[in-house]
């Protein structure tokens, strides 16, 4: 499996460590109504679909960056990869 690193180009998946569901980047606000329930879901629930999934991968044997990789879990087809820092920035921007 080759992962298209946004900065370094195609890299073998062996260089990466897998974390799982990229929804982890979207941490709920600790304030307001239902914050406790939202945090409970955030901490304990992970998406694990059979199909297209957005996942966090760490480039351990590379530039040590976190990536959000969109992968089809049925076919292992990689549909895209973005820097997790950019995704997190966009999420923060959308929240403000």
């Amino acid at each position, binding site marked *: 499996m080759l992962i298209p690193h946004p*900065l*370094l*180009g195609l890299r073998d998946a*062996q*260089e990466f460590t897998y974390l799982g569901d990229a929804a982890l980047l979207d941490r709920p606000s600790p304030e307001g109504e239902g914050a406790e329930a939202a945090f409970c879901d955030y901490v304990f629930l992970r998406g694990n679909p059979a199909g297209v999934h957005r996942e966090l991968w760490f480039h351990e044997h*590379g530039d040590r960056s976190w990536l959000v990789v969109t992968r089809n879990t049925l076919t292992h087809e990689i549909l895209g990869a973005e*820097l997790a820092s950019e995704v997190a920035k966009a999420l923060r921007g959308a929240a403000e």
Partner: protein
Amino acid sequence: MTDLIPLTVFGAETPRQTAPGALALAERPDIAIASLALRRGTAGAAPFGLLLPGPGGLAAAQAHLAFWTGAGQWMVLAEGLADTDFAAALRDAAPGCSVTEQTDGWTVVDVTAPEPLIARLLERLVNLPPEALAPGRATRCQMHHLPVHALRLSSSRLRLLAMRSATASLWHALETAGQRLALP
């Protein structure tokens, strides 16, 4: 005062050199290493006249060399300065940046061979497209299952930064590969 004798990573008093096949391997304990990271809001730095390179890049100026290791991070090498406080010198040359001493954490191994031989060596030991290690490129990767920083200084020169504790394994891999490449 006690006379202390510095030993190299292999426990010897002189750096190891061998030439398996047509490869020349040389341990380089004279090279000082420090890492440089920009802090948030810092515009940039140009220590020792080095133009800090972008992703996968390498820049050299006289005895200094810098290569990209991550977003806003570089490793800076200086030949012949391993027994000086190179991190302090780099800190002075790059004000406002985070600098960490790395000398002796990594072992530097220089591989010299004719260009086609280096290409065949990389084909066997590195799982990367050839352009990722074309002359003037540098990247962190796995070589023989060991994490290394690989720097292609020129078409015939490859510099490897190996984890100190695994240098003997890397040396063995390079030696074996050199011997096998020499087979008809």
